[in-house]
């Protein structure tokens, strides 16, 4: 659909026009038609034609947008040059969040153990995770492209006997690097991106421990029952179903281990059951299986083999650490814990300046030094460091940015100190 002006919306026509995704988050109370919202957003974008990367509008002049829209965001723009929107192809995704929270699925009537949590996407709980995850080398866009290709292949009716793809993504790496969060964020993102194709998304998080029965030989059946429940969701062609198997090694422990007699034979049945069920599910175009693991060598080879993408998620690089800290500091400034508000330079801007230290870049360079020092810490630790810094070294309700950075540097030192103590004592 072309707007009245010269902004284009819709699928790119194959030429080298840039495809830009615009996500419009509608207010949950809004009853406006999506087409109307789109028109107003196009209007807004027409007024702000030049974009320099990701950008998010939360305040509007247009009264209609004030009443109906929470935010308009240009997302995942990986261009370096400023871009004129009139020359590019716009995909506008309008969405509202689901506020229900997870629904639980019990397999055993007597047992109250929850076998799976189920979210309707896009879910309020997963909102903002995608932006908070910072990786290098375009890992996020690769994963997005993978799933898009999966769906593209299914659309084109590619014979899956000739070209095989299993719809299984395995994320592995050290703890605290955001594997589980990435799975949730990916599902959220795709349910928004593909909203014109699939009316809604379902996210099922399997609780692996619930699938082991106290009764011998029942475990395999429980797995089959679980997948039957998932199958029912998949049967609706309007639904895009994501199945997350967290810590997958507990469900698909290497069967070779059991030959040594250290695993009961029931565990083998579970692995067999999972593998056969996966093979059944992959026939459907609207399902993606996401698995995460810390210890890949424990996973059965047959499962690893089925995963199309085995993505390693490692600890963040200094650039990613810098960006993580930057987002933390922004949040603290927004909450007025760091006062007065000061603008820090981004890593890209520092790079362009050649990492020269002057009066403008002084604090940003300080932050970069902290980031370099923090190398080796996981994302989970990094996100809690600003909290620890405030708790241990600030001790006043509000603080200047410079003072806070000093505290942050101390907190990093302490983190490494604790770590060496922990390893020495072992």
């Amino acid at each position, binding site marked *: 659909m072309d707007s009245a002006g010269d902004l284009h919306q819709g699928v790119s026509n194959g030429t080298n026009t840039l495809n830009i995704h615009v996500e419009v988050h509608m207010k949950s109370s809004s009853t406006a038609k999506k087409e109307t919202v789109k028109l107003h957003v196009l209007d807004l974008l027409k007024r702000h034609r030049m974009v320099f990367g990701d950008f998010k509008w939360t305040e509007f002049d247009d009264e209609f947008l004030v009443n109906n829209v929470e935010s308009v965001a240009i997302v995942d723009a990986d261009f370096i040059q400023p871009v004129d929107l009139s020359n590019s192809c716009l995909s506008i995704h309008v969405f509202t969040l689901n*506020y229900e929270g997870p*629904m639980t699925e019990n397999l055993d009537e007597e047992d109250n153990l929850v076998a799976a949590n189920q979210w309707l996407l896009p879910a309020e709980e997963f909102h903002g995770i995608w932006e908070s995850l910072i990786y290098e080398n375009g890992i996020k866009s690769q994963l997005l492209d993978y799933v898009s290709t999966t769906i593209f292949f299914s659309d084109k009716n590619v014979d899956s006997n000739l070209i095989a793809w299993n719809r299984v993504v395995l994320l592995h790496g050290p703890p605290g690097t955001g594997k589980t969060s990435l799975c949730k964020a990916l599902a959220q993102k795709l349910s928004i991106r593909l909203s014109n194709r699939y*009316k*809604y998304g379902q996210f099922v998080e399997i609780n692996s421990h619930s699938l082991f029965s106290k009764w011998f030989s029942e475990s395999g059946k429980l797995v089959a029952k679980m997948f039957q429940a998932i199958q029912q969701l998949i049967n609706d062609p309007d639904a895009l179903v994501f199945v997350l198997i967290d810590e997958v090694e507990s469900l698909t422990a290497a069967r070779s281990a059991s030959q040594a007699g250290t695993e009961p034979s029931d565990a083998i049945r579970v692995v067999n059951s999972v593998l056969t069920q996966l093979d059944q599910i992959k026939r459907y175009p609207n399902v993606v299986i996401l698995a995460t693991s810390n210890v890949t060598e424990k996973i059965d080879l047959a499962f690893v083999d089925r995963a199309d993408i085995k993505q390693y998620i490692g600890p963040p690089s200094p650039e990613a650490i810098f960006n993580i800290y930057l987002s933390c500091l922004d949040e603290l400034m927004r909450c007025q814990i760091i006062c007065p508000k000061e603008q820090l330079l981004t890593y890209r801007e520092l790079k362009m300046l050649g990492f020269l230290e002057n009066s403008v870049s002084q604090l940003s360079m300080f932050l970069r030094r902290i980031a370099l020092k923090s190398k080796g810490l996981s994302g989970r630790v990094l996100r809690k460091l600003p909290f620890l810094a405030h708790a241990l070294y600030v001790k006043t309700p509000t603080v200047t940015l410079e003072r806070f950075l000093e505290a942050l540097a101390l907190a990093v030192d302490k983190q490494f100190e604790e770590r060496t103590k922990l390893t020495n004592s072992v």
Partner: protein
Amino acid sequence: MAVLDIGAAVTSENTDVSLPGKTGAGGRGEEEKENRLPGPGQAAVLVEVDTATGGSAGCPRCVDAPARGSRPRAQAEDGRVCVVFRGAVAHTSCCRFACELLKFVLYERQQLPAPYDQLLLLQEATAPAGRQGALRRPMKTSGLDGRRCQQTLRELKEVLQNLEVLFSLTLVPRVLLLLGGNVMAPKELFEIDLEALVLGEEAGSLGTAACLRQLFHTLFVADVLFKPQPRSLVATTVMVLGHRDCGVGWFRPRQDYTVPTRAKRQVIALSSDTHPPTPAQGEQRDWEDYIWFQAPVVIKGFCK
């Protein structure tokens, strides 16, 4: 389905295939239903409906209706029960239909250990004794899980009150009661279809109580809801179709919502057999502007 059972019973007796109720479903069919019906709880519901009706025998033609008219008119197909009222109904009655059906379904699907109104009474009785507390007969409530019970009753009360508000703001052609799962993939779905009802002025319409009696009479006879089997406790969500611009605040609009087709579905279709008094009412409404609203509160079932 149980509906088919009735059909089969009638057919075997009368060899009349057309409608289950048409021949009066006399003889064996009737007896079978009599046998199947009771169970103490269900009897209690019947009594409750009857007492509700008792006070207001306002409109003679509709009090007669259930006795003579409704049986032949109650058409029960697979998963669909039609209730035809002999005249227009008041706007406020529609709300009562939906509310009563919600209470009924919750009880019938074993999400409440006793009918809602009875639970309210129980709750009142167990509440710290007021002035009249000493006079009241002490009721046995020891088995009831107090906190869970109160929470569920609070949720249900909130939903019922807000349903009333929504009904006063907009015409409601459809109400969904979704049990279990989530709104897109529920375990069971009840659809209350009010589209074919002719709405009239309060004065010239059928009495609410009489209509309720006819409605529940039809449901009991059609025997669609009674399946004595243990059920797990689930969450119940209420969805209401209403006008886009009705300005309701409590309900959340769900624009893209489509009624799930894969769940076990039971439609209760209410209609009037009279023609709308003014052509304005009968003219094609713009259903485009009617969207689904979801109650932000789910009703979690509880047992004793």
